[in-house]
C-alpha cells in the first residue's frame, strides 16, 4: 500500500505540488487526472523517489520512502511518459538491462523476461531492435520494462500517449490483468474514457492541489460525464 501525505514541491516561485495527499491500496487502480501543468508528473516523480518533496512523506507498506537505495523503491515499477527505451537494442536486450538494474540474473531474469514479454504480446519480437517497432509496440515494451521485477505498485504516467486503439486496448487488458493479480496501479491520463474504464477511484489535481477525490460514480452522481465534471472543476481556459 502506498500513501502520500501533504506533499509539497516548488521550483523557484512555481509551486508544482501543494499539499497533495493520496492513498493507493493493493488491487486498486487510482486515476490521477489533471490538465497540462497541473502537477501530475511531479507527483508521480515524488511517489517513485525521483524528486524529493520540500514537505510531506511517502510511505510504502508503512515504511517511509527516502534516499536513493530505499528498499521501498523495489516495490515500485515506473512506466514513464517517455518511451524510456534504447532504440538501438533489441527488446530482449532492453529488458535484460532493466532487469539487471533490480539485481535479476540467470533463470530468474529469464523467467521475468518471458513473462513480461508474453504479457505485452511481444514474445515473438524479442530479438528485434526497438527502432523497428511501431509506436504501440514501444508503449507495450515500455510497460513490460516497468513490470520485470514484479513490483507491487505500478506508476503509469500517460502510458497510452500516441498509440492506436488496438494497442491501447491491449494495454488496458494488460493493466486489468495486473490489477487482478493484486497490483496497485496509479494511472495518469488526459483521456477520460480510459480513467472511466480502468480507475476505481479518481483524484483530480490542478495547480498542484487535489481538487477532487472520489470514485467515478461519486464524481458523476450529479449528472454528466467524467469529462464534463473535469472541465467544470478545472475550467475551460487553455493551459500551456
Amino acid at each position: 500500500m502506498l500513501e502520500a501525505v501533504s506533499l509539497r514541491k516548488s521550483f523557484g516561485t512555481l509551486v508544482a505540488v501543494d499539499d497533495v495527499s493520496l492513498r493507493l491500496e493493493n488491487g486498486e487502480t487510482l486515476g490521477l487526472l489533471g490538465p497540462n501543468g497541473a502537477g501530475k508528473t511531479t507527483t508521480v516523480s515524488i511517489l517513485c523517489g525521483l524528486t524529493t518533496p520540500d514537505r510531506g512523506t511517502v510511505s510504502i507498506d508503512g515504511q517511509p520512502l527516502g534516499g536513493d537505495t530505499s528498499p521501498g523503491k523495489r516495490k515500485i515499477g515506473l512506466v514513464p511518459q517517455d518511451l524510456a527505451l534504447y532504440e538501438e537494442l533489441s527488446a530482449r536486450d532492453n529488458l535484460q538491462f532493466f532487469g539487471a538494474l533490480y539485481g535479476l540474473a540467470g533463470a530468474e531474469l529469464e523467467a521475468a523476461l518471458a513473462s513480461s514479454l508474453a504479457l505485452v504480446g511481444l514474445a515473438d519480437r524479442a530479438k528485434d531492435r526497438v527502432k523497428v517497432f511501431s509506436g504501440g509496440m514501444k508503449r507495450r515494451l515500455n510497460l513490460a520494462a516497468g513490470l520485470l521485477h514484479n513490483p507491487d505498485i505500478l506508476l503509469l504516467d500517460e502510458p497510452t500517449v500516441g498509440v492506436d486503439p488496438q494497442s491501447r486496448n491491449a494495454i488496458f487488458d494488460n493493466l486489468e490483468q495486473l490489477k487482478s493479480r493484486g497490483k496497485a496501479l496509479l494511472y495518469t491520463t488526459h483521456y477520460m474514457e480510459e480513467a472511466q474504464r480502468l480507475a476505481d477511484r479518481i483524484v483530480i489535481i490542478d495547480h498542484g492541489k487535489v481538487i477532487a477525490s472520489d470514485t467515478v460514480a461519486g464524481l458523476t452522481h450529479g449528472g454528466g460525464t467524467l469529462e464534463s465534471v473535469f472541465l467544470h472543476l478545472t475550467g475551460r481556459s487553455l493551459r500551456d
Partner: protein
Amino acid sequence: MSLTPVIGIITKDLRVFWSDRRAVIMAFAMPITIASFFGFIFQGRSSDDEVAKIPILLVDHDGSRISTAILDGVKADKNLAVRSLPLEQARDSVRRGNDTVAVVIPPGFGAAAGRAFFRGAAKPQLDFLYDPSRAMELAMVRGVMTQHVMEAVSKEMFSGQGSQAIIDDTLRQLDSPSTTMPEDEQRSLRDMLTSIQRFNALNRIGATASGAPGATGGGGLSMPFEMHEEAVMARQNASYNGFAHSFAGMGLQFMLFAAINMGIDILTERQKGIWKRLRSVPLSKFTLLGSKIASGSIISSLVLLVSFAFSIIVWHVRIDGSKAGFVGVAIASALMAASYGLLIAALGKTPNAARGASVLATLMMVMLGGAWVPTFVFPAWLQRVTVVVPTRWAVDGFDAMSWRGLGFGAAVMPMLVLLGFAVAFSVLAVWRFRWEE
C-alpha cells in the same frame, strides 16, 4: 552490494556502443588513419632512409673562383638540394613555395670577401631570399652557407691564385699613413701576411715540380671535426619510430571522443526519460555514475588498444619501456577520459549543445597536450603551461613507455596526475550532476 546492476549497465553500454557498426568502425579507423598520417610526417630519419634535403637556389652574380668554390661546396652538401637560376626566376620560385631559400652572391663578392677576411672591414653581403613559412629551414641554410663560404674564402686566401694580389694590397694598406690600426697589431698582421706569401710561394714551386698546372695544394680553413650522430633510444641501433608518438596522441584523442559520446549518451538518456527509470531503481548515485565511468573506461581503453595493436602490427611500434607502466598509463588515461565524459554529462544542458562545446574543449586539450605535434616545438612558456593539461601527462607517459623505453618509475608521475584529474573531474561531475528531474 550486488554487482549485477553494475555489470548490467556496463553490458548495456557496450551493446549500445557495438550496435552502431558505422560509428564503431569510425571510432577505430579514424585514429588509425590520422595517426598513420602524423606518423609519416614525424617519422624522423632512420639510418636507411633517404635524407630529406632542403631545396635552395643559388644565384651567382660574381662568377669568381670563390663563388664557384662556394657553389661546388654547397652542391656537394648532403643537406641541400641546390639549383642555379637567374635572380628573377629564383625569386619567383621561392614566392611559389617551390624552394626554401635563394642565396644571391653579388658581383665582386669573392674579392671583397678576401679583403675582409684579413682586415674585417667592408664585408660583402650575401642575400637570402626566403619563404617566410619555412624560417626554421632558413636557419639551417644560413649555417651550412657559413661553413662553405668560410672554407672557400680561406682556401683561396691561403693557396689560391688571387691570394697574392689581395695580400700585396693589404700590405700596402698597412704601410699607408692613413691606416688606423695600432702599431703592434700592424706588425703582427704584416708578419702573418708575409708568412702566407712565403707559404704560397713554396706551394707554387711544389706544384710546378709535380707538373700539375694550376695546382695550389690544400690549404684554407676546414671543419676541424666530423660529426657522429646517435639517437638515444631504448635499444642499441634502434631507430626512432614516429608512429609511437602519433598513435599515442591520436589514441588519446579518440579515447576522449569516446568519452564525449558517453557524456552525450547520458544526456540523451535524460532527454528520453531513461534516466528517470534508472533513478527509480534502488541504486546509489555512486553505483550509477561509477558504472558509467567503468563502461566509459572500457570503451576508451578499447579504442586505445585497437589503435596501438594496429601500430605494433603494421608500423612495428614497440613498447620498449615497462609494459606494466604502459598498461598503468593506459588505465589512468581511460579513467581520466571516462570521468571527463561524466563531467560533460553533468555540465551539458542538451546533447547537441554539449557536443559542440566538448569537441572544442577536447581538441584544445589534445593540441596543448602534444597529441598532434610534440610539445618540444611549442614555445618554452607554452611547454610550461601545458603541464596543467591531462593529455600532456598521458602523451608523455605513453612516449616514455614506448619509444623512449623508460622503466616503470617514469610512468608513476603521469599515472598519479591522470588519476588526480580523474578524481577531480568525477567530484566536479557528481557535484554538478542534476539528480532530480
